[in-house]
């Protein structure tokens, strides 16, 4: 929890034009931010402005326009480095999103470095994007996957983690914050366990980067991945940060233009970081949009963003927790940003359908975390997730609509 003052939604909401629309005869209440966030005008205008005034391919142009495009693109990289307090912009690689970032590490580091007898430690609460790439690597290399289970309060079981992380562990890949439960995971403790045995640590920051200040140097991790579209930025852009000495040793992920130094018919040599990992024409407009999103968030202050989302999440947990027949999932001590729940007798999909009727957009399903759902003993949950533009009134509407839906389905 931060001592920073929360943001006032009256100041924030006008920045997000999409929110000014009706759904189900009411003002849209967009509560699916863990899936993707809405975009402020600053981002929409930055992308439009790039295409109107600056568009050209980057890095190789001789002409002035191409130079300006390159400056805009590389300027976004600088902003991304500053946003996560990376000391070195060479270690900031633009990807299509968190999924590609993790796949990059799994492919370019995992297949090169892992063999049979090696172990990768994950948690049962991982998003499929931080699970399936490692299953593919394990199959290709013979490495073994181990999973940190949930403890009694539905947070990660640190005692089990201490048992699972051992000298055979080569990598611990962990969600910084659970997309399904909202839990902020104990990454400091788990990173310390990993460092004790010489294992690398990858943090999936898809949910944490939009939510609170991130400092990759203080975290002590080796890789950190996040997406632009959950961070008020465009789709199709994300960031992989890695320790430079590790990235230098890795082979390329995708081959093509941009990532090479020289190419002959006999073979090729690789460009320097970060371009070694950015084959093809990069996501230029998307990077510019992401840079604008980071400027927007930084101007507001990520500590205030955190306070705002934490306050909304706490309010939601209290309001929904009072509803008879409801179960809230996740670790109440660390949970924020996302709130998963189930209503006795109402299937999560029926719940989401009935909430949609009230203009409330939430997600129902397994949230790309099927092993977590199995661990919780449920097929699916309904999830409300929050961003800075959400309001207490929207959460009041959510609570009222949940009660109404239950009455409708259960005939109370």
């Amino acid at each position, binding site marked *: 929890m931060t001592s920073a003052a929360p943001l006032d939604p009256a100041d924030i909401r006008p920045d997000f034009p999409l929110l000014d629309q009706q759904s189900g005869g009411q003002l849209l209440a967009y509560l699916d931010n863990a899936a993707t966030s809405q975009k402020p005008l600053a981002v929409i205008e930055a992308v439009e402005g790039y295409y109107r005034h600056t568009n050209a391919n980057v890095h190789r142009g001789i002409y002035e326009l191409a130079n300006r495009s390159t400056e805009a693109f590389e300027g976004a990289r600088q902003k991304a480095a500053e946003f996560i307090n990376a000391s070195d912009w060479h270690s900031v690689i633009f990807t299509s999103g968190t999924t590609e970032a993790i796949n990059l590490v799994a492919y370019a580091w995992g297949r090169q470095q892992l063999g049979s007898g090696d172990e990768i430690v994950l948690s049962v609460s991982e998003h499929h994007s931080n699970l399936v790439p490692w299953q593919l690597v394990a199959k290709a290399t013979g490495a073994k996957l181990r999973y940190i289970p949930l403890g009694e309060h539905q947070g990660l079981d640190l005692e089990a983690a201490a048992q699972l992380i051992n000298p055979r562990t080569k990598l611990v890949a962990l969600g910084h914050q659970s997309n399904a439960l909202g839990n902020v995971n104990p990454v400091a403790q788990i990173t310390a366990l990993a460092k004790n045995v010489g294992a690398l640590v990858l943090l999936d920051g898809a949910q944490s980067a939009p939510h609170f200040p991130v400092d990759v140097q203080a975290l002590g991790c080796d890789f950190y991945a996040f997406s632009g579209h959950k961070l008020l930025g465009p789709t199709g852009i994300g960031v992989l940060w890695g320790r430079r000495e590790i990235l230098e040793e890795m082979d390329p992920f995708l081959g093509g233009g941009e990532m090479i130094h020289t190419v002959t018919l006999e073979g090729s040599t690789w460009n320097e970081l970060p371009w070694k990992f950015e084959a093809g024409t990069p996501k230029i407009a998307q990077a510019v949009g992401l840079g604008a999103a980071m400027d927007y968030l930084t101007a507001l202050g990520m500590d205030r963003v955190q306070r705002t989302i934490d306050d909304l999440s706490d309010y939601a947990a209290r309001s929904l927790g009072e509803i008879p027949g409801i179960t809230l999932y996740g670790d109440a001590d660390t949970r924020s940003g996302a709130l998963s729940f189930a209503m006795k007798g109402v299937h*999560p999909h*029926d719940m989401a359908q009935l909430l949609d009727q009230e203009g409330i957009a939430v997600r*129902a399903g397994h949230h790309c975390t099927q092993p977590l759902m199995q661990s919780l003993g449920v097929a699916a949950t309904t999830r409300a997730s929050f961003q800075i533009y959400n309001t207490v009134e929207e959460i009041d509407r959510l609570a009222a609509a949940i009660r109404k839906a239950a009455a409708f389905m259960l005939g109370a």
Partner: protein
Amino acid sequence: MSDMRDLYQQLILDHFKSPRNKGPLPDADTTAQGRNPLCGDEVDVALKFDGNQIVDIKFEGTGCAISQASASIMTTVLKGDSVSHARDLLDKFSGMMVTGKGSLQQLGKLAALADVHKYPARVKCAMLSWRAMEASLERRTVAVSTE
């Protein structure tokens, strides 16, 4: 939520809360599983035949109101029906899921599910039991053809 009565009609809520023909069918000739891994819905359909007639049909499963009510309504329609008419109803029902149109005369109370077509994400819920029933019928065909 008055509009919700289009999707969740009284007949659907009634079958969801009080499902018909739900439970095991110990002397079933064929059974088949319907699974929707995306939402976790499960519907197993068991059939018992006498010649070309479905003399008994039961389902077991868990899931949303649409999937469970659709399964329940299906069993009440198909019990005692002929295999060929069951296949015909499957075609007409799946057609209604696409177009929203179906003759009340041909589909009877199955028409209560017509508005599901407006909610593309839910069509798979309504179809789950029908797909399981179809698979159960296929097994009979296989069994018959290998005799």
